[in-house]
């Protein structure tokens, strides 16, 4: 497909890899965090780590929206879906997230709850139009990319005069999560996550632009290179980060110029600002309570806010003890460091959220990387 295949050319990837290998300083290590789940997926799927020298490390960040939603909010959604006469609309990725008791939206659906998998917020509006006798709740999750579509849905519902449509809002913000990781005690005091730079998210940046990252580059002295989702984009971004570090620069650079403008998508930003406002605090799986990191629906749109219409208690539920999702989401541990990875916890029967979505670090490593470690070990022995 145009604008996909040419960004996946293997020979070019090898050439960029040669460049990275020749420019990387062998006297030091480089640790780059890819924030976005889309990049995590691409890195695993295309075996990008295999193309890098041993001293260039990629650390998975918390940019998988399905993974960072705390179990309490999933539990809330399940209870909503079990309300008689209520239809819950959800993106497909959310359905298999297990709660502490092993329940999931998919199991609730099997037990009779009316849960509809939607591809778009627009589908949820259609369901509300077609079912005027039922309350329809859209389980809205995701970063800055899914927030504008939710805003459009609320505007549509208002224009159509739908009084049976509400949104259970769980939208979160990328820059707050990056700040939180950089400011966390683990990074500051223990230095467990030695981060030298960030691969900036692709489609989040399409919406918010490249400007919001300038704060990190200045405040934390960390270079950021925004990259597209294709393997050549990621390789090129790694080369650009490496060059910044080698020349002592900490700037925001944009590799994904074909879709990311400095100011982003202003039309989408205006819509979001009209409908949503900041929450004082929101719980993230793996990161805990993060101030000003999520959005809620403004009071003037309270009629479309499920948290206003229904009783939705604040539930704080701990992860399964054996599950390392929290540490993996902070970049402190790798999927293969988790005891239950690939044995008890698999994509077919996930225990933790990182194994559910294909963008989760564990699911990506399970699908594309789990035999790599053993192969590497074997080839080194030989």
């Amino acid at each position: 497909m145009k604008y996909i295949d040419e960004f996946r050319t293997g020979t070019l990837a090898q050439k960029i890899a040669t460049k990275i290998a020749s420019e990387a300083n062998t006297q030091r290590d480089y640790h780059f965090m890819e924030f976005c789940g889309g990049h995590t997926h691409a890195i695993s799927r295309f075996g990008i780590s295999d193309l890098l020298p041993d001293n260039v490390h990629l650390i998975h960040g918390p940019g998988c929206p399905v993974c960072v939603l705390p179990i309490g909010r999933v539990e809330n959604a399940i209870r909503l879906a079990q309300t008689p006469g209520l239809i819950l609309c959800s993106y497909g990725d959310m359905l298999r997230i297990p709660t502490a008791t092993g329940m999931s939206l998919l199991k609730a659906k099997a037990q009779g709850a009316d849960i509809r998998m939607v591809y778009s917020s627009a589908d949820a509006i259609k369901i509300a139009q077609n079912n005027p006798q039922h309350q329809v709740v859209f389980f809205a999750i995701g970063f800055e990319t899914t927030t504008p579509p939710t805003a459009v849905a609320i505007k549509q519902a208002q224009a159509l005069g739908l009084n049976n449509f509400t949104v259970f809002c769980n939208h979160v913000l990328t820059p707050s999560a990056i700040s939180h990781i950089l400011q966390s005690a683990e990074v500051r005091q223990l230095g467990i996550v030695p981060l030298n730079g960030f691969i900036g998210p692709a489609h989040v940046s399409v919406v918010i632009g490249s400007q919001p990252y300038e704060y990190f580059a200045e405040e934390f002295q960390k270079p950021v290179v925004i990259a597209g989702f294709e393997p050549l984009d990621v390789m090129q971004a790694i080369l650009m980060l490496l060059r910044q570090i080698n020349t002592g620069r900490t700037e925001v650079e944009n590799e994904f110029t074909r879709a990311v403008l400095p100011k982003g998508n202003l039309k989408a930003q205006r819509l979001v600002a009209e409908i949503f406002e900041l929450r004082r605090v929101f719980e993230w799986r793996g990161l805990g309570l993060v101030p000003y990191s999520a959005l809620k629906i403004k009071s003037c749109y309270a009629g479309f806010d499920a948290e206003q219409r229904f009783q939705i208690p604040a539930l704080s539920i701990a992860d399964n003890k054996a599950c390392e999702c929290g540490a993996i989401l902070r970049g402190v541990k790798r999927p293969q460091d988790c005891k239950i990875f690939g044995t008890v916890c698999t994509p077919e029967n996930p225990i933790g959220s990182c194994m559910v979505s294909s963008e989760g670090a564990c699911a990506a490593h399970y699908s594309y990387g789990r035999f790599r470690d053993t192969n590497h070990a074997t080839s080194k022995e030989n």
Partner: protein
Amino acid sequence: MLMCLAIPACVEQLINENYAVVNLGGIRKEISLALVEDVVLGDYVIVHVGFALQKLDQIEAERTLAMFAEISTLNQEDI
């Protein structure tokens, strides 16, 4: 049904101001144009959860590809 992955697709048909049909590698799909402006037939847009998030700048795409190619010629010179 991947929620988060977004891909470039060609606009094949404009239904009205707010909707278009795009071609995603042979699959035709109706998407919303509510978040973008001035989309015309033949434009490539980044599609995500049924919405066009941005128009793809075809000149910039060529520029990025040219940059990759430049790296590859530099490498050949090195050899």
